């Protein structure tokens, strides 16, 4: 009975509100983002002309254009609705939002796909957005001084090994949260993309999409067998 009302509240009120908040804030952000470029171009008169802007834009689009579409899809299964709006507005998804989401879920031992897991991810991501901004403001205000305080070995280790170490640790967390079968599916998808000619920058998004496709194919097969549906 309670479950029923959670679900109807979730679909009927929570999610529609999440879309309203998400879309309106993203829209406002898009407008605000353009202001500095407009100001420099037309108030200070430094407009470089449409030619150079397009040339630079196309160089970037050739390199990240596919990611604009593929990344939101491949991160959605973990981030959910609120998490997607927050993560794509604030960036740093692979290196901060995803690790924070899984650590918070594991800290309270919430199972993937439950409401508990979703609430933990949203709260965690919101907190990480704030912490990240505090650090960024520190960068621009104190900048180099803070780095000068760190002993060289520590600074070197942080600079060079944070990402490899983070990826290793986070991979283990996700494997721990999965059934053996789903973990194998994910690892296979990763391996297949790694061995393929797909270039490194598209790799993670491609692996995500391949894992979604594999999971769909494997589980559709399962559903047809009456024994498994019963169990």
């Amino acid at each position, binding site marked *: 009975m309670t479950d029923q009302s959670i679900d109807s509240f979730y679909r009927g009120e929570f999610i529609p509100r*999440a879309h309203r908040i998400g879309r309106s804030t993203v829209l406002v952000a*898009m407008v605000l*983002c353009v202001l*500095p*470029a407009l*100001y*420099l171009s037309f108030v200070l008169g430094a407009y*470089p002309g449409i030619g150079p*802007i397009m040339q630079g*834009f196309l*160089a*970037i689009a050739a390199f*990240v254009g596919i990611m604009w*579409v593929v990344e*939101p899809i491949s991160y959605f299964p973990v981030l959910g*609705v609120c998490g997607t709006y927050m993560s794509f*507005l604030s*960036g740093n998804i692979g290196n901060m939002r995803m690790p924070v989401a899984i*650590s*918070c879920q594991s800290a309270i031992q919430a199972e993937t796909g439950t409401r*508990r897991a979703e*609430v933990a991810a949203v*709260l*965690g991501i919101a*907190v990480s957005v*704030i*912490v990240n*901004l505090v*650090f*960024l403001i520190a*960068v*621009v205000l104190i900048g*180099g001084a803070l*780095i000068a305080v760190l002993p060289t070995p520590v600074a070197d*280790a942080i*600079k*060079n*090994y*944070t*990402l*490899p*170490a*983070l*990826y*290793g*640790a986070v*991979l*283990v*967390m*996700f494997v721990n949260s999965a059934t053996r079968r789903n*973990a194998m599916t*994910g*690892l296979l998808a990763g391996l297949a993309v*790694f061995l393929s000619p797909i270039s490194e920058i598209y790799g*993670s998004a491609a*692996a*995500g999409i391949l*894992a979604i496709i594999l999971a769909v194919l494997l589980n559709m097969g*399962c*559903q047809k067998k009456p024994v498994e549906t019963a169990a």
Partner: protein
Amino acid sequence: MEQVLQTANGMALWLFALLVVSIVVVQALMFLRMTLNFSNRFGILTPAERGIVYKTATINSIGPAIAVFFVAVTLVAMVGGPVTLMRVGVIGSAVFEFVAADQGAKAVGAELGTDSYTLEAFTASVWVMTLGGMGWLISTFFMTKSLDRAQDRMSASNPALIRAIGTATPIAIFSLLGANAAIDKSWLSNVTVATDDLIATISAAAAMILLHAAGKHRAWLREWAVGFALIGGLAAGYIASHALA
């Protein structure tokens, strides 16, 4: 160059940066409040669990935030504080913003951090960063609703599928990120292994396996697990790079 940095660090740009940062904060607080209400109304998380989540999120954000810090510092020297804050705060992977700034400068025949970097070149950089980052915002704006609907339909007909997708996808992504961080290759050839990076990845993963086992009965350890594993990985990578050199 001097003059450009003066404009780049001027009042007007600080004001714009502040606006952009505020919308990010406002959005996070709105989602936070809405989700807390939802959780309280149906007793989804206990107050103790909420405390654990806040603490875990803070601990686990600090390591990556420091790493972003290093790239951001370089960017500040090139395009000034406000643009760095606004770009890395919104959509930023700091590395992407770097490439975008560079491409914008190149398009007007200038180079970042040199005297050729005029106000016009700076403006071109800002345009390319803005339009480049816009792609993610546009697709998020248009796609999130459909993704949600698709997932909802699937979970109604086959709940096991949603769990499979939700767990297999991040494993695929992070196994690839880990492999790419340590191994450089063109397709099946020119393979180079960065041994120190590989050791950092493997040590952090091994530390995590141990911490996970140890954390089964010690709740506080689960909050710190990623932080400890990171430190283990950093130390191992650093020692390996010196032992090998």
